[in-house]
């Protein structure tokens, strides 16, 4: 057993963290305030190879492992959980192609993401179907030499800027999970109607919208796998992406702890820095303990992925534990900062707002527990 990172992983981490510190943290508050989409930062990160880490080397990617991917993800989330949501959405949308695509689809749709800066969007959730993703109502009808997509999608990250969507729909609602299918839709296809950008509590720089598909025609060869294989592809995507989402909780939590430690050493009350007060020490100790435990879970969930082993159970542990811990840690960071923590002048209130979403998207903390129980009781 070896818990250490390779020298290459340490360098990757160094670079990603340097990027987070120099290019993300200075803009995070401003972009959050103004709800600015971080396209410039996104592009810079892409130029350095920090984006689309899921693309295999044979299609032009850097050939990163899942563990490499979560190391980068944690660092970018350290810079800003909101911006990182935009970045991560690329992987989330490309993973179904990596997992379920054939060679021609991978060449056609993955490789362009390695040669130019492109944005992707994963469209699964609908206004009436969040956790119950199996209840998809968007239809994919056979139109002869093409597929016709009709339906409403909701909470779609990157939708306003997407060069490519991976859209989930059903070929027949009566088939339930067995009818679910996934198709690749180019961003410029006629019939795609964007809703307004959501005004969110946190992750305010990320672009989240509803998207309507009105008789959107896509070529037959754009379906991933066979009709009805979409559910299996979506579930396998989640096994890969949950460790990544969990790593973003880790980055946010680590940032909150670093800020808390720094502030606790500086802020003086009753004649001593508040770090000398046991009440504050205990909160910081709790932060360190949770981050260490979460990091081990997240790394194991990604490592299992790299070994080609089923990680559904551990990925859920990692996602739920890391996001719940991030919520607790960012809340305590605000507590340590006291009144200042509640002010937008200081960075921790944003972390607390951002943390909340990680408990919700990519399977809520409750759904994760459902998955765990299902795995444990089967």
């Amino acid at each position, binding site marked *: 057993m070896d818990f250490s990172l390779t020298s290459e992983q340490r*360098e990757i981490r160094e*670079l990603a963290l*340097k*990027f987070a510190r120099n290019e993300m943290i200075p803009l995070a508050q401003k972009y959050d305030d103004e709800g600015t989409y971080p396209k410039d930062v996104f592009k810079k990160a892409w130029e*350095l*190879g920090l984006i689309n880490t899921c693309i295999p080397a044979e299609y032009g990617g*850097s050939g990163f492992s899942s563990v490499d991917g979560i190391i980068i993800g944690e660092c970018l989330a350290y810079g800003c959980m909101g911006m990182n949501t935009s970045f991560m959405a690329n992987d989330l949308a490309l993973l179904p192609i990596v997992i379920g695509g054939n060679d021609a689809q991978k060449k056609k749709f993955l490789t362009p993401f390695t040669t130019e800066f492109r944005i992707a969007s994963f469209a699964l959730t609908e206004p009436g179907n969040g956790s119950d993703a199996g209840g998809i109502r968007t239809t994919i009808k056979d139109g002869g030499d093409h597929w016709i997509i009709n339906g409403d999608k909701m909470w779609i990250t990157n939708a306003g800027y997407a060069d490519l969507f991976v859209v989930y729909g059903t070929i027949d609602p009566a088939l339930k999970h067995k009818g679910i299918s996934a198709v690749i839709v180019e961003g410029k296809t006629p019939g795609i109607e964007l809703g307004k950008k959501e005004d969110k509590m946190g992750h305010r720089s990320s672009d989240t919208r509803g998207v309507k598909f009105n008789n959107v025609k896509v070529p037959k060869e754009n379906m991933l796998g066979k009709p009805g294989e979409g559910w299996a592809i979506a579930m396998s995507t989640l096994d890969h992406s949950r460790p990544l989402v969990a790593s973003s909780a880790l980055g946010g939590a680590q940032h909150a702890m670093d800020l808390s430690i720094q502030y606790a050493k500086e802020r003086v009350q009753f004649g001593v820095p508040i770090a000398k007060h046991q009440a504050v020490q205990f909160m910081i100790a709790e932060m360190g303990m949770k981050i260490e435990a979460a990091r081990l879970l997240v790394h194991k969930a990604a490592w299992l992925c790299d070994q080609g082993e089923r990680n559904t159970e551990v990925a859920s542990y990692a996602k739920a534990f890391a996001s719940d811990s991030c919520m607790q840690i960012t809340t305590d960071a605000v507590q340590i900062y006291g009144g200042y923590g509640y002010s937008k002048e200081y960075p921790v209130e944003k972390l607390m707002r951002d943390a909340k979403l990680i408990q919700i998207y990519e399977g809520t903390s409750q759904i994760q527990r459902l998955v765990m129980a299902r795995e444990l009781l089967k």
Partner: protein
Amino acid sequence: MNIFVCVKQVPDTETKIIPTSDGSFIETASIKWIMNPYDEFAVEQALLVKAANPAANVTVIRVGSVKDTEALRTAMAMGADDAALVEAGDNLDSYSIAKALKGAIEKSGKKPDIVLAGKQAIDDDALQVPQILAEMLGLPSVSVIVGFELNGSTVKVKREIEGGALEVYEVATPVVLAANKGLNTPRYASLPGIMKAKKKPMAQYSLADVGVSDADRRVKYSGFKLPPEKPAGKKFDATDAAKQKEVVAQVVGLLRTEAKVL
């Protein structure tokens, strides 16, 4: 064209420096090492020259301990072609370092056209190595450069002088140049760059290989200790108009006798 860049590995700027218990040096075990920030400008300048002259070869050289080769790997990940490491302790003096660098350049078998370095290392702030190295190599040198323009076999460099003014020099290559902040904006090492760097050659020499011995030491450190802690600031209340004259006299007096800045 052969470009050599001399880099030093220094403690990360956020490192808490602790002298060893006997005061002979600083504790190095827990230090996170980074490339000296001024050297990053030197590496970037070399890479800019290489971009304009694809046949140019950029070699990075470092003198220091082997346990961590961060600076050389970073430089190669940024785009340098190869590296040379002279294995030594981390507390050599400027003269020994310059002599080791000279030896490593000679060992490479390549005739240098441009030798670049940062103007100073942020650990000991000696500002000596580039000039000593130039002297040893018998080459001209310009330090604190903030502008660089290569025209054939001459380089036009700008250097900062007192009062924010610039001196402009035209120097024939080969030349030793020491970079200041403002020369350029160093690039990040990209992830593909990091991968490629692993396959780039790194020569390794001992001090003896490059002709340096203990006899070369010109400076011996007699002790390392932290500066005394800063006393708390003094506050003067001059809100009462009648007392202002007295308070001003008091402040001026203290600036003269205590702070010794007047």
